[in-house]
């Protein structure tokens, strides 16, 4: 059972529906015990960084996520969920994140239209079982105004996308994985990525 963290932000249902399609068992929950007992945790995300962190803190989730990450449990952050894994965000202020990954969340430079919205191609930086049946330059769906930057650890970069600058698209450090795009909204490619992730953690 995968626990999808419910922190009252944005669209979480489509992720559940995608996992249902793949017959990957999941539960949408804010119950800390359920999250501790799950075999993996997904932190989804649509919304603003500060609101999300406030909700996670209020629910006592931040500590649990830190503990579970330290215990080696697989954690997947999607879009804002991935950004929350980092130390700091500069979205409308300066906010502290969960701090599982080194680096910061910064606004995409204005040389291009912001938000980065739509289908963009993935460039692979390293081999990963996540890429099983995923060809080079596959399109996935992005919708975000902020991206990982600062002093992030380039060794964690699994795939990126070009949009004015290099946008970290998939990051991985041990049991912690982040996807900046929405796999649940990225058609067949996205479903395959989720399927691969499901196999990776089972």
């Amino acid at each position, binding site marked *: 059972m995968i626990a999808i963290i419910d922190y009252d932000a944005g669209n979480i249902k489509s992720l559940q529906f995608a996992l249902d399609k793949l017959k990957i068992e999941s539960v949408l929950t804010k119950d800390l015990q359920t999250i501790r007992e799950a075999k993996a945790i997904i932190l989804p995300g*649509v919304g603003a960084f500060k609101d999300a962190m406030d909700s996670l803190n209020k629910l006592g989730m931040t500590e649990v996520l830190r503990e579970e990450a330290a215990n080696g449990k697989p954690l997947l952050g999607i879009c804002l969920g991935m950004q929350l894994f980092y130390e700091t965000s500069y979205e409308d202020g300066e906010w502290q994140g969960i701090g599982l990954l080194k680096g910061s969340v910064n606004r995409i430079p204005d040389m291009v239209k912001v*938000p980065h919205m*739509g*289908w963009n191609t993935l460039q692979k930086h390293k081999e990963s079982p996540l890429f099983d049946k995923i060809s080079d330059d596959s399109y996935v*769906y992005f919708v975000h105004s902020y991206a990982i930057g600062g002093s992030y650890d380039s060794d964690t970069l699994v795939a990126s996308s070009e949009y004015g600058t290099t946008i970290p698209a998939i990051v991985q450090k041990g049991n912690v994985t982040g996807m900046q795009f*929405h796999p*649940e909204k990225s058609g067949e490619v996205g479903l395959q990525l989720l399927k691969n992730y499901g196999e990776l953690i089972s």
Partner: protein
Amino acid sequence: MLAKRIIPCLDVDKGRVVKGRKFQNIQDVADPVDLAKRYNDAGADELVFYDITASNEERNIFLDVVEQVAREISIPFSVGGGIRSIDDINSVLRSGAEKVSVNSAAVNNPDLIKEAALKFGSQCIVLSIDAKETSTGRWEVFINGGRKNTGIDAMDWAKRGEQLGAGEIVINAIDTDGEKNGYNLELTKAIADAVNIPVVASGGAGALEHFSTVLKEANADAALAASVFHYGEIPIPELKAFLVEEDIIVRR
């Protein structure tokens, strides 16, 4: 490279997809869930649903449709029509939509954009603008389904919307809507050049060339259409093959 998007638009009334011309003569077309799935499978990049119903009861039927659609498709979709409050936006997002588009309510209360962008993030707040060229020689913003002229300059409103936190603009040319003679290139380009957020062209698609022209010459990031898709006049795979030949980057 970021691909240009092709977006079928579904007007939903009492749980059915309908299509009108210049916002009138509404005709019944199909079941929204079936149609959404068909477009998902045909390679549409995104879908837009406009709820054209009025009562609360019908609103609930619509939210059920949103949830069923979210269950069936694996591409993003946005929802608009009658969105008046943060609660409305929340319920649409919670039903499974990625984005919400605001139109009349944002004109009446621009702070709605700001509040919504802060709460849910700019990326899910779409400002939909219905514009028409008036005798004053400029494009003015119309609300209430194109019935009321606000006298607001469309360019000013687009820029203001961006400042308030909208993440995307849909620009619908009332004059060309449903006419199938092509998008309003001048209006679309003026808006696209005025803001630094994605702009979706809407109103007037009738032929393959209309899509390539608006994406290339008017700098639109996406092209929205309804009837040419609903009635099978332009199949999406054919449209995308055409756009590739025209050197436009699309997802295939």
